[in-house]
């Protein structure tokens, strides 16, 4: 089988220039009851860069992503070992405020999940959580967020329409607008385009390139080409014999795709497995 060479980052920038480390995953293992889903992952997340997690199904990409804002706390029986540093502070340390961590590390999910309310209220939801009630501020931030999510032109005529009445791609951009409205520092995206058609996918990929100017983005993707196109850094995870996911290789995306250090990475990106 011939594998098409993957197209690299459309902007054709040189491998990402040095940037501050926003988050650090240090010696992280995740257990679901007795089953170890992730073992001993070490990984940096650089500021204002897009970091992609790729790997075969079941290797724990999403699980690893969810450790970054403690969403695994919501799963009964899940337990995280190791440290996840956000600006140098362990978010799993005792006394950390999980609500505040999730405000700082936002998330966009695989299936668009607009709330059952108007477009406006969807975006204003997080702002109201923060205690912002003033109409003028809400109006301004809602517009700003919808513009940043490239959705404004499509919805500005009727902000009162239900968020669930939008198309799939628009719903996902609404979710992005909702996430960025509270100005998180990091945005986690769990296969944000896998439920979308190619055109909607392209729109979101373009959007990510502008979003990274203001946010640090971590994205899980099923799609290697997508990782190659949009990300600055890539982490390749795989599954061990005991079904525990582990990090095979991490590096600048260009390097990982053109000159992988590990045989397993090469096999995966050339389509020999996974």
């Amino acid at each position, binding site marked *: 089988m011939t594998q098409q060479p993957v197209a690299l980052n459309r902007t054709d920038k040189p491998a990402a220039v040095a940037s501050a480390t926003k988050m650090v995953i240090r010696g992280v293992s995740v257990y679901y009851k007795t089953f170890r889903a992730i073992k001993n992952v070490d990984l940096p997340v650089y500021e204002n860069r897009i970091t992609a997690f790729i790997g075969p199904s079941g290797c724990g990409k999403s699980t690893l992503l969810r450790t970054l804002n403690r969403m695994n706390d919501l799963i009964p029986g899940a337990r995280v070992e190791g440290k996840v540093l956000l600006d140098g502070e362990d978010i799993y340390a005792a006394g950390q405020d999980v*609500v505040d961590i999730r405000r700082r590390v936002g998330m966009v999910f695989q299936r668009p999940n607009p709330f059952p309310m108007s477009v406006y209220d969807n975006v204003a939801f997080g*702002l109201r959580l923060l205690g912002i009630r*003033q109409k003028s501020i809400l109006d301004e931030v809602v517009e700003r967020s919808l513009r940043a999510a490239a959705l404004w032109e499509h919805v500005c005529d009727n902000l009162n329409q239900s968020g669930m009445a939008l198309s799939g791609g628009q719903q996902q951009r609404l979710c992005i607008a909702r996430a960025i409205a*509270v100005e998180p520092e990091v945005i986690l995206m769990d296969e944000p385009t896998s439920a979308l058609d190619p055109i909607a996918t392209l729109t979101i990929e373009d959007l990510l390139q502008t979003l990274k100017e203001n946010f640090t983005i971590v994205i899980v993707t099923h799609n290697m080409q997508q990782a190659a196109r949009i990300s600055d850094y890539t982490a390749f995870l795989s599954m061990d014999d005991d079904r525990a996911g582990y990090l095979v290789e991490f590096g600048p995306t260009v390097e990982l795709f053109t000159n992988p250090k590990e045989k397993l990475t090469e096999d995966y990106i050339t389509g020999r497995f996974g």
Partner: protein
Amino acid sequence: MAPESIYAHVNLRRNYRRRKILNTVMLSLTGVTVALAVLPLVWITVYVLLKGGRYLNLALFIHLPAPMGTPGGGVLHAIEGSLVMVLLASLLAIPVALLAAFYLLARPNTAVAQAVRFSTDMLAGIPSIVVGLFGYAVIVVTQKHYSAFAGGVVLAIIMLPVVLRSAEEMLKLVPPEMREGALALGAPEWRAALRVVLPAAMEGIVTGVMLGIARAVGETAPLLFTALGNDHYEIGQIVRQGLHYHQSMGQILGQIFGQPADALPLTLWKYAQQPYQERVQLAWAVAFVLMLFALGLNIAARAWLAYRRRKLYG
């Protein structure tokens, strides 16, 4: 370039303090309400355990009641009566309910399905004593005598909507892809339903059936008009007599279902209001047995489901 950050308008520290206070209040509130929700169950269980457990003995399960005012005796008549009537009710109600639920799943939007759904909901809302009255008018009056059969039929009517609606809800939870997968292999609809959809929904269906049975076991009112009550109901005696007189199997079964019968809750209701100490004690013991029955049924079903889950999912 950056427009003003929203955090110019947000007091995170104040938010945090407010949230912490609210959190403590709500957490305590939920704690209290959870305790309030559990309290009746614990209270009833402990109370019945203390009051009824004391009078529990073997005689309770193997003897008929002693004459009023004399100590001893048991409630074998009520245990057997309950078993016979609930068994009949289950045999009548469960297959009908499950088949109807499959129909609702396969043809959810037809007029028939809407009608079935509407009428079962109505049926579930009818007070059980009215169902009993119906059984009296339709079965007891035409047969000119009370019977375990009439009791079983009214219990079946009460079970039907409980089992049907819960089964339908559980079947709806099975991903349609599963059923479609079987249909795409060329399976006829009945086979897809029986071999694929039913096992996938088994857990919830069993829970629904148990709810139905528990409901039937605990009903008193409809039996007042139909099974009436019978202190001398004893299957062993009926069978022995039948054999003695060379009756056929059918005739013996006819005797078992044709006689008036007692049931545990019915006995409990009657004995609890009699002026004899022994009978009141027996009533407490019956309450205890009823609870044991419900608990035993629950544990058995859960054990079976756990075993099945282990086999299915490893």
